[in-house]
């Protein structure tokens, strides 16, 4: 049965959309990531207009982060104060990101903005993850524990220090605000939750204890992607609720299977796989930017 997506203005078979949601859900359950960085490019490759793909994926991330956040909440593994500070930065970032998105859309450079952001971010994150997971695999083989340095950094000299009880930290609010802002911008222009940026930032920059990292980042992601969805709906009219519904239903079911398979694989191997996947998506988008296009002309029709 075909369904007509009222905002993307295209007919698709419902099984295809459900399947895409399921496949991305499976991968996100497998790797423990939101999957926005895979879903947005997949929708674009499938022919959904980039604006609709980015905006609709935000609502998918809100849903797929819910069950994880609830589970972490029950374990009391959420630092609400830290989450709130990062979300505040995130909301400002989302506002700026949606503004930038609308501006670039009017300039006809939105695809460039989306592709370049993806290439830069996926390239960097993928390379870092690949390096880290290869190092961890080597370390596991030689039997030595992976080295982790803990030291005072320049961040401890910043003003506006606040005590974050659950994270056992006494640090300035500026770094979490800035990280939140940066992730908010990414959320708006790429349709990602930004977990693959927040989680390393929390661990390596803020030095939060790992037990609260997952819950706090999910908490922040839910707030920021929800805000992004509303902002995209009100400024760009680009959220497709029908597409979102099918993607979410497929996604939450797929995630359950992903989690089960993921439990049987080793962490380092999973991270290596994820790094390769991230690099592959980044490379695909990079080729789109540097290879001579089949047709240099493109047409956009006013709504």
């Amino acid at each position, binding site marked *: *049965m*075909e*369904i*007509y997506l*009222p*905002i993307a*203005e*295209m*007919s698709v078979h419902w099984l295809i959309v459900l399947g895409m949601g399921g496949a991305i859900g499976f991968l996100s359950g497998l790797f423990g990531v939101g999957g926005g960085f895979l879903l947005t490019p997949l929708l674009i490759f499938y022919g959904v207009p980039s604006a609709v793909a980015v905006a609709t994926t935000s*609502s*998918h991330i*809100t*849903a*797929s*982060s*819910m*069950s994880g956040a*609830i*589970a972490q909440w029950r374990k009391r593994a959420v630092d609400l104060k830290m989450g709130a500070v990062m979300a505040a930065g995130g909301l400002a970032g989302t506002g700026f990101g949606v503004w930038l998105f609308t501006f670039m859309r009017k300039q*006809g*450079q939105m*695809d*460039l903005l989306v592709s*370049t952001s993806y290439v830069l971010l996926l390239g960097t994150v993928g390379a870092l993850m690949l390096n880290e997971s290869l190092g961890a695999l080597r370390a596991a083989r030689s039997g030595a524990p992976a080295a982790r340095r803990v030291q005072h950094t320049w961040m401890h000299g910043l003003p506006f220090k606040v005590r974050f009880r659950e994270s056992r930290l006494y640090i300035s609010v500026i770094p979490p605000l800035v990280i939140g802002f940066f992730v908010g911008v990414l959320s708006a222009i790429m349709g990602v939750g930004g977990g693959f940026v927040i989680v390393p930032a929390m661990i390596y920059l803020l030095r939060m204890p790992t037990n609260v990292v997952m819950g706090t980042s999910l908490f922040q992601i*839910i707030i920021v992607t*929800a805000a992004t*969805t*509303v*902002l*995209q*709906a*009100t400024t760009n*009219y680009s*959220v497709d*609720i*029908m597409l*979102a*519904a099918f993607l*979410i*239903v497929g996604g*939450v*079911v797929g*995630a*359950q299977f992903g989690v089960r398979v993921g439990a049987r694989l080793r962490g380092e191997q999973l991270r290596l796989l994820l790094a390769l996947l991230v690099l592959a998506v980044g490379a695909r988008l990079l080729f789109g*930017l*540097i*290879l*001579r*296009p089949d*047709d*240099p*002309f*493109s*047409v*956009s*029709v*006013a709504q």
Partner: protein
Amino acid sequence: MRRWTALVAVLVFSAMPARATEDLVAGVSQDTIEITSSYTGTDVIVYGAIENPEDTGTNDVVVVVRGPDTDMTVREKSRVVGIWLNRDQAKFYAMPAYYFVASTRPVDKIAASYTLQRYAIGLDNIVPERIVSHHDAEPFRKALIRHLQHDSLYGEQPGGVQFQFPTLFIARVPVPAVVPRGQYNVEVYLFRDGTVISAQSTPLFIDQTGLERRLYNFAHVSPLSYGLSTVLMAVLLGWISSLVFRRND
């Protein structure tokens, strides 16, 4: 718009109670197309007859279907420091969002180019109200037509109008799955030896109906509630899934 003046002139002219000359009666299989969830494109049948046919001379029928006017931007990518990005652009104001022409013969065989230009018949004779471009707009126009043809929004079918009997004709106009909403016009022209002697214009409405229409309106009329509803749906679905799958964990 010259085209309309010309069309009106022909309509007035043919409405005059003159002696029994050749005339045209035409109809369209439907006056509305409703885009529902199961819509995957359709065919509109245009049919008609020539009244009081004369024995000498050549009759030709041309069917033109035009969609609502819309603004289109064509962008051209070029290479800047190794990256292909949109550099040049041309804006076409008030281009038909859909255009299809079917005829008994290739249109350039039917009438002289100035006649075709006057009635905007044929893909090369679609003229926007205004073009804004810093460069020669011709390559952009060609690219525009090519893209719209590829998307089945523009089309040309010489031989698409077929006479079933000497005076009865029929044409099949394909309307693709992705088609803009709005008022379309079905125009039927009767040419005799290269001159329009009769013409008829019938409106055709294409609209979304049902749930899709309501969602589209909702998104555009009250975007804030629409955005909040989407978030609420996402939160609820996420929460329900965690309830459903909880006991399995």
